[in-house]
């Protein structure tokens, strides 16, 4: 039954993808890509990836849609020119697809326990998580400790992308560019009572859920990346409902910039403590007398760092986009 449900969702996924590419209205395409994200999140959940499903739902369906829509507000929603060199592109795409499909015939079947990918380091991580960290969620253990270097790198990529967006959009738009098409609208949806009331009810719970996901990441699906996205989504919702200015009063730009740097620094510093105490970089065992306690403390600290940076970057990017049309 689960298999059939998966097949159904996957088929819907392909249909949605084709619709995204075919539609000439960019607004429709962005909305469809939100649906695409929710569908793929459901598929991830069916494939036992609860953490990934949570991330995809928060980021793909929530934040990505908002960012694309804020960009469309500045750009316009109509695709003007049709595709170019359709036949050549189709030929290349179909040839590559046939080659990949042919290659998949050699892949192990879905869920095959003897597949090479299941026999390498995966089982080792599962076996050692209770021994080294003694936390239930092995995804968090691998993310925070076993592969802490990777995650540090990812945090710095997020940081760099955030700085890049701020550089690109920090410079003022050409004078008079947006005056004709976009009236400054600082009020958000304040005049629409229903979304505003529903939003007011929801925002505290979304925030609470964000913090739960942050601090419960060792025990259930969750962690810094997901929590950062959920908290950012709550504040973006506040900005959409009450006006961007109100959101900026609550969390000023400078504070967000501080968050971005603070999170990455916290992560790096926890790594350095290991180094200074005579161990390896990002070795949390030395944070406490008991190595297992040290690992747990290290994971909580770096997850906090990840959450802080992700929240800061996503909110800064949103404000950079939203402020653009009003300059």
């Amino acid at each position: 039954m689960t298999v059939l449900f998966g097949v159904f969702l996957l088929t819907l996924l392909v249909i949605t993808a084709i619709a995204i590419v075919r539609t000439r209205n960019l607004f429709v395409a962005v909305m469809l890509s939100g649906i695409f994200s929710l569908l793929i999140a459901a598929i991830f959940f069916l494939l036992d990836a609860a953490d990934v499903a949570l991330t995809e739902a928060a980021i793909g369906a929530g934040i990505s849609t908002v960012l694309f829509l804020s960009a469309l507000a500045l750009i316009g929603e109509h695709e003007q020119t049709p595709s170019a060199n359709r036949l050549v592109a189709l030929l290349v795409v179909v040839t590559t697809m046939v080659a990949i499909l042919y290659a998949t015939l050699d892949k192990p079947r879905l869920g095959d326990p003897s597949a090479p990918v299941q026999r390498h380091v995966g089982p080792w991580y599962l076996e050692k998580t209770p021994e080294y960290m003694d936390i239930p969620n092995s995804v968090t253990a691998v993310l925070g400790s076993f592969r802490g270097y990777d995650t540090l790198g990812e945090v710095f990529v997020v940081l760099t992308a955030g700085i890049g967006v701020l550089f690109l959009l920090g410079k003022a738009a050409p004078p008079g560019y947006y005056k004709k098409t976009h009236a400054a609208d600082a009020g958000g949806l304040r005049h629409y009572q229903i979304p505003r009331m529903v939003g007011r009810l929801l925002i505290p719970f979304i925030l609470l859920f964000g913090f739960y996901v942050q601090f419960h990441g060792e025990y259930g699906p969750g962690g810094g990346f997901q929590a950062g996205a959920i908290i950012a989504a709550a504040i973006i919702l506040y900005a959409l409902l009450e006006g961007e200015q109100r959101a900026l009063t609550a969390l000023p730009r400078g504070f967000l910039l501080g968050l971005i740097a603070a999170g990455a620094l916290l992560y790096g510093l926890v790594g350095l403590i290991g180094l200074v105490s005579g161990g390896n970089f990002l070795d949390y065992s030395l944070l406490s007398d008991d190595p297992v306690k040290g690992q747990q403390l290290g994971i909580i600290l770096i997850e906090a760092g990840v959450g802080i940076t992700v929240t800061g970057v996503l909110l800064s990017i949103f404000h950079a986009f939203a402020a653009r049309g009003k300059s």
Partner: protein
Amino acid sequence: MELFGLYHYWVFAVLLMIGFYAVVAKLNLIKKLLGLSLFQAAVFLLYITMGKVEGGTAPIFQAGVVDQLYSNPLPQVLILTAIVVGISTTALGLGIVIRIKEEYGTIEEQKIQEIDQL
């Protein structure tokens, strides 16, 4: 059920190529970025599919449960971070598109090239 054993991989191939088609054939820059996200999502699907173990569950231990099979946590970790990095790079792309629109007045590739050649 054996029939559907490779279905996830086939969908991966199709999604990958739909995204690729949008990147090479569409002239609108936003469409290209959406195509890139589809391409990315296809890769995510490939990784998560590989980590699934038959009869397994999400790799979160429960007290008192023994002999439970778990799916592979490693591909999940890689994709979890990749999703967040993906949105950051997409935002960077959108920032560039907005700047292009402001400088050129259009985000259609052909028109941008025409303006460049003047």
